[in-house]
């Protein structure tokens, strides 16, 4: 017996939700029974969720993929000789050559799936911490300039230029400043933060350290939603490992720079993903949003200058510093530079994470990558950018995926979540849900959101019941205007987007009889 064959089985939520642990157990058992020595690696996910659990075998210097593998498939895989890369109905060939992956432009997610998420050695062998070292070399000012030159904008949804935010924090003098990593990824149809945190957590920590160094912050917080228990475990392990090996703490790499990160877990509130609500929650309070100004960059956490950045934003920075900002800025279109990790979700055949330069059309994403609907029925509506994003009809699928092109069609790209619906969807029910969700999740601080959402549900119900239809449609329109113009934050301010778009593109679903026949 020579070297042990290395077998990879992801420990990532999507894979686990389809039985990856049971598959790993079955593989270990089969190997033990046949006295074959294997090394079982629990990697992160490549993001090809439709192929999960995706099992890989390292043979001949290559990783050969099999998937989707169920525990019941392991016996036949073993009998076929999958540990030597043998043929099998589930064999997908070399992982790197799977078109879904090879045709992507992996920047932020380049190590996801490749490495054991908690191995600092593997992280560094594949370029980890090179960006942080580079920042320490060039200094805070040049680091901020590089982020500005890259054109990176906030990937959490708002799309604010990251370098300018950092500049504001850097320019505001204070004894204590903070980095707050927003990991409260609550939008339905989005999971890129989760995949990055579960599959390559050190990248997030590295991005935070770079941000801290650039703006002069010695403390960082990660605000993680409670619905992500695995990300919590992985981040806790990664923070411990980074501290033990001196990547967090005092005088990091003898640079004189001190930085540490505390992990906070939320408690099931959607609105806490709004940056000021998140800051309140990080202070131990109810997540009531704050008035702006002052901007968090000037008066943020505990009243101190705070750079609030999304997980993917922070995770995109290290490579920008390694390659130089041009390589990132060369990707994309218009003012949308670099890559966005799109997340294909809902009724789609091949759901997963697709990192691409901005500019591909929605249609290409859904058809080429997604393979159309899972049900095989025609696409009728697509919601992009989470529960506060507009619904697009099939006629708008040629919209290029960039911030401005979406804004021009009254949509938002947001965090890059794409939820596909087939022709069985009831768009009046979706519009009603948008208001209902806002009523459940509103923080309650401002009236347009707190009361408007409740009235919104009622008015939609009246329209569907055929009660004073025209009057109530006008009322709904007015109500939406009030919410858009009068709400304190995006929760109330954008809830009308799915409602208005559903009314505009799918008016037939709001006929009084529509609900009854569907």
């Amino acid at each position: 017996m020579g070297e042990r064959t290395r077998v990879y089985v992801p420990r990532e939520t999507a894979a686990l939700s389809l039985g990856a642990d049971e598959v790993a157990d079955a593989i270990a058992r089969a190997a033990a029974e046949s006295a074959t020595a294997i090394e079982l690696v629990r990697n992160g996910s490549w993001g090809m969720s439709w192929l999960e659990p995706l099992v890989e075998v390292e043979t001949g210097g290559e990783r050969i993929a099999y998937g989707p593998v169920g525990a019941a498939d392991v016996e036949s895989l073993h009998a076929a000789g999958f540990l030597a890369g043998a043929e099998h109905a589930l064999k997908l060939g070399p992982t790197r050559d799977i078109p879904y992956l090879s045709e992507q432009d992996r920047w932020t997610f380049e190590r996801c799936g490749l490495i054991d998420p908690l191995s600092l050695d593997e992280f560094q062998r594949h370029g980890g911490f090179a960006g942080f070292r580079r920042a320490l070399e060039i200094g805070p000012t040049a680091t901020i300039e590089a982020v500005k030159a890259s054109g990176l904008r906030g990937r959490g949804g708002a799309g604010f230029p990251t370098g300018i935010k950092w500049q504001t924090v850097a320019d505001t003098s204070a004894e204590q400043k903070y980095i707050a990593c927003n990991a409260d990824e609550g939008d339905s149809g989005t999971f890129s933060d989760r995949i990055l945190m579960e599959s390559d957590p050190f990248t997030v920590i590295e991005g935070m350290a770079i941000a801290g160094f650039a703006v002069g912050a010695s403390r960082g917080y990660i605000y993680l939603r409670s619905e992500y228990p695995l990300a919590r475990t992985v981040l806790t392990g990664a923070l411990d490992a980074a501290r033990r090996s001196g990547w967090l703490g005092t005088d990091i790499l003898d640079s004189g720079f001190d930085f540490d990160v505390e992990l906070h877990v939320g408690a099931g509130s959607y609105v806490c993903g709004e940056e000021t609500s998140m800051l309140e929650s990080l202070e131990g309070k109810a997540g009531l949003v704050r008035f702006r100004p002052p901007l968090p960059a000037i008066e943020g956490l505990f009243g101190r200058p705070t750079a609030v950045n999304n997980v993917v934003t922070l995770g995109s920075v290290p490579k920008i510093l390694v390659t130089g900002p041009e390589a990132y800025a060369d990707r994309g279109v218009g003012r949308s530079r670099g890559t966005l990790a799109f997340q294909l979700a809902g009724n789609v055949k091949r759901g997963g994470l697709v990192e691409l330069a901005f500019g591909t059309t929605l249609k290409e994403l859904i058809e080429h990558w997604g393979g159309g609907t899972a049900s095989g029925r025609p696409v009728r509506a697509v919601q992009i950018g989470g529960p506060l994003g507009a619904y697009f009809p099939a006629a708008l699928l040629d919209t290029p995926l960039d911030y401005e092109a979406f804004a021009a069609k009254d949509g938002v790209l947001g965090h890059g979540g794409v939820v596909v619906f087939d022709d069985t969807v009831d768009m009046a029910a979706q519009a009603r849900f948008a208001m209902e969700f806002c009523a459940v999740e509103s923080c309650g601080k401002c009236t347009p959101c707190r009361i408007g959402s409740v009235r919104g549900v009622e008015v939609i119900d009246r329209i569907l019941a055929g009660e004073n239809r025209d009057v109530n449609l006008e009322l709904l329109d007015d109500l939406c205007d009030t919410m858009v113009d009068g709400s304190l934050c995006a929760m109330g301010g954008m809830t009308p987007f799915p409602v208005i778009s559903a009314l505009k593109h799918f008016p037939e679903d709001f006929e009084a009889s529509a609900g009854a026949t569907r």
Partner: protein
Amino acid sequence: MATKYDQAIAAEIIASFDARPELLVQILNGFLARYGHIPDEAIVQIAQALNLSRADVYGVVRFYHDFRTEPPGSTVVKICQAESCQAMGSRELTAHAERSLGIRLHETTADGSHTLEPVYCLGNCACSPAIMIDSRVYGRVDAARFDALIRDPGSA
């Protein structure tokens, strides 16, 4: 879980967060992990230890969906109600779950075995519809798989 309230243990939880008022949400998460809910006694004790009013603590408890004040059933089942799962039949799945367990969302079965709750996104949207049983997430759950998982959550 569902352990009897114990002031000494509660004091330990609070002390593990250095009784810092800015860690109130984290402290309450600690109680949730220990007791499965936030007992009334905890609100009193936390308020004292953190030098906050009971109303302050209660206000925070009330704000967050996770901080239930009644003990849940021994198994908590959450069904995602958000858009991606709706696109894959979560409304029908929820109706099935309600029928199958004989309770509505937010309710607990009479024998205390199951609590059914809505959740808005588990981040498993590429494998919708998703549910969570205690702290484990399951993907592509149809009615048959739901019933199998209720009988045996290990039958992934």
